[in-house]
């Protein structure tokens, strides 16, 4: 990491690190607009991570691995959504259930298939290829941000644009937001809010499947509970991003940068690893509290004005 071909490796790494968070929070944005607090992002990332690397290893194809991994994740999301919406369970508790299920299922399967409950390595999975355009990468900031990433990074940006279009420019997006804001208006149109909510949960499964695939395919290994809090951070990114696609992108970058900085600090200063690992959580809490203080005082001043 010391000899990087990038001018600002910190920014470059932040863009890479933020990708699974961004992917999870794009999907979470849909469920959030549908009026559901989707804490299952964490578990869905684990499912995507596990199944995509397993399928990629079995089929020897990254593409098939990703597709099948996404299918598995959407399936779990379907179970989560169906129980929540059609058995009328509390979405927060079923979200917890999904996280517990994902963690348990992947460990049980890893043990069953590979006889191992620790790190499972997949020697036939190689690092994802990146978009390298020689010296252009040296362009400060722009080169750091835009070049030298793998395809997941670019897909995640495309999805941000797609999310913007779907949420604001299509009837699906408007009806989904309506289902979240005021379900009875959707009912009065003769439509079922639950259907839009279920679709939003499936979308979150799709993006989390991609986000999870990024985690394991880049590493060539699966680690139990590999999402390690990213789903939660994605949730906070949705709030910080003011529930808009662009805001979510910026918020994800803040968290990516925080983690990139933690990694950098780990190498540069002699701080125990556990402290470094706790930094993203601490930074997230501070950002959240700071944001609510800001919102609180803005609310006060607008009331007076």
């Amino acid at each position, binding site marked *: 990491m010391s000899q990087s071909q990038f001018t600002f490796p910190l920014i470059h790494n932040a863009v890479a690190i933020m990708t699974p968070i961004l992917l999870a929070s794009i999907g979470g944005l849909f469920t959030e607009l549908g*009026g*559901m*607090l989707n804490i299952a992002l964490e578990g869905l990332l684990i499912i995507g991570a596990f199944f995509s690397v397993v399928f990629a290893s079995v089929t020897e194809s990254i593409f098939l691995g990703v597709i099948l991994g996404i299918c598995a994740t959407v399936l779990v999301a379907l179970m989560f959504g169906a*129980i929540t919406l*059609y*058995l*009328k*369970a*509390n*979405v*927060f*508790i*079923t979200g*917890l*259930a*999904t996280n*517990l*299920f994902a*963690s*348990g*299922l992947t*460990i*049980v399967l890893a*043990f*069953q298939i590979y006889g191992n*409950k620790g790190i499972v390595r997949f020697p036939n999975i190689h690092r994802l290829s990146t978009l390298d355009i020689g010296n252009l990468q040296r362009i400060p900031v722009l080169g750091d941000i835009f070049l030298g990433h793998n395809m997941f990074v670019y897909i995640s940006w495309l999805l941000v644009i797609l999310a913007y279009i779907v949420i604001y420019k299509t009837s699906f997006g408007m009806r989904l937001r309506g289902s979240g804001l005021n*379900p*009875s208006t959707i*009912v009065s149109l003769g439509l079922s*809010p639950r259907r839009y909510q279920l679709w939003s949960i499936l979308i979150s499964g799709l993006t989390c499947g991609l986000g999870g695939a990024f985690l394991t395919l880049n590493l060539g290994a699966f680690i139990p509970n590999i999402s390690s*809090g990213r789903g*939660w951070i994605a*949730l*906070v990114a949705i*709030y910080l991003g003011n529930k808009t696609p662009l805001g979510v992108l910026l918020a994800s970058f803040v968290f990516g940068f925080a983690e990139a900085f933690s990694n950098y600090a780990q190498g540069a200063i002699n701080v*125990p690893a*556990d*402290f470094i*690992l*706790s930094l993203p*959580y*601490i930074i*997230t*809490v501070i950002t*959240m*509290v700071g944001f*609510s*203080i800001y*919102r*609180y005082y803005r609310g006060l001043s607008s009331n007076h004005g």
Partner: protein
Amino acid sequence: MVSGMILPEKGITMANKKSIKEHLAGAVGLLITLAAAFIIVLILVFLLSKDPLRTISYFFSGPFRNKFYFGNMINASIPLIFTGLGISLAFKSSMFNLGGEGQVYSGGLAATAVCLALPLANPFLGSIFALIAAFAAGGIIAGLSGVFKMAWDTDELITSFLISSALILIVDFIITGPMDDPTNNLLATSPIPLQYRFLKIYPPSKLDISLFFALFFAAGVYFFMNRTHWGYEMRMCGLNREFARYGGINVGKFMVIPMILSGGLHGLGGGFAILGTYDMCLKGFSGGMGWNGIAVALIAKNNPLAVIPAALFFAYLEAGAKAAMLHSDVTFEIAAIVQSVIFYLVTAQALYGLVSSKKRKAL
């Protein structure tokens, strides 16, 4: 504003007065939930085990096979009683404490630290100090989220989780760094002095006198919630915070107090586990106690007395999975899958007959 939207109260804080019919529907729903969990166990074992009959027999009868297993199962329910009580107290007040894991862990560390700092103290006074420290540790951590909520309306559900996640890592560091005992090979602190260790009541198992404290606290929380002024005000805030505010209750105060008490109970769970069971603060000793407390509280419908059987049931599940792992070829994590099934179904209103009654709502 956020958490109000997120959590339709219906699923978690049930109304107080229920008709017999609703009680019956609730019992049927619980039965369906448990039956589903039972079926999932069977399916998993038949899929995963090479000797399914042996595995199933150990899963279900393992905890009763000898005094050691049986006592340890009861013992494992003790921290779940404390965390279950902590969660139900917070849920009843419509506060969502999601940081149980870190609170139990920190409570355990605080109790250990006090015991190690007072090597020669009177066992009675010393353990009281240790437990106060455990309560304070958990209470302060959770209380912080309550204060944020009161002052700036920061969502306590997410802050309590994030603070706890950070603390777990920091406690890990303290146990394996500054407080690590170099004379043993465990990732653990030094053992606490002998005089603090609780009396075992069912040898050879680890079951100890903290069982009585757990039962005492369950009764205490029940009395507090249902027979005291504070308990009443907390329940009022839980039912409808705006209504409570209109009725002259200091709503902000009851954002902080339930969190402190909830975190404190979690911390106590960790403290009792150290004094009664572990004798030293082991890395990760409390893993799962916080999450399972949530499930226990939900099965118990936030009734402090019902927390006791619910905790026993969860301890039975884990003991069964452990016995199946030791004597057969499945891994312990199938318990997590079974628990997740319970989580999935335990708030499902369609199963509990609540949909047909007046509570029909669009979401």
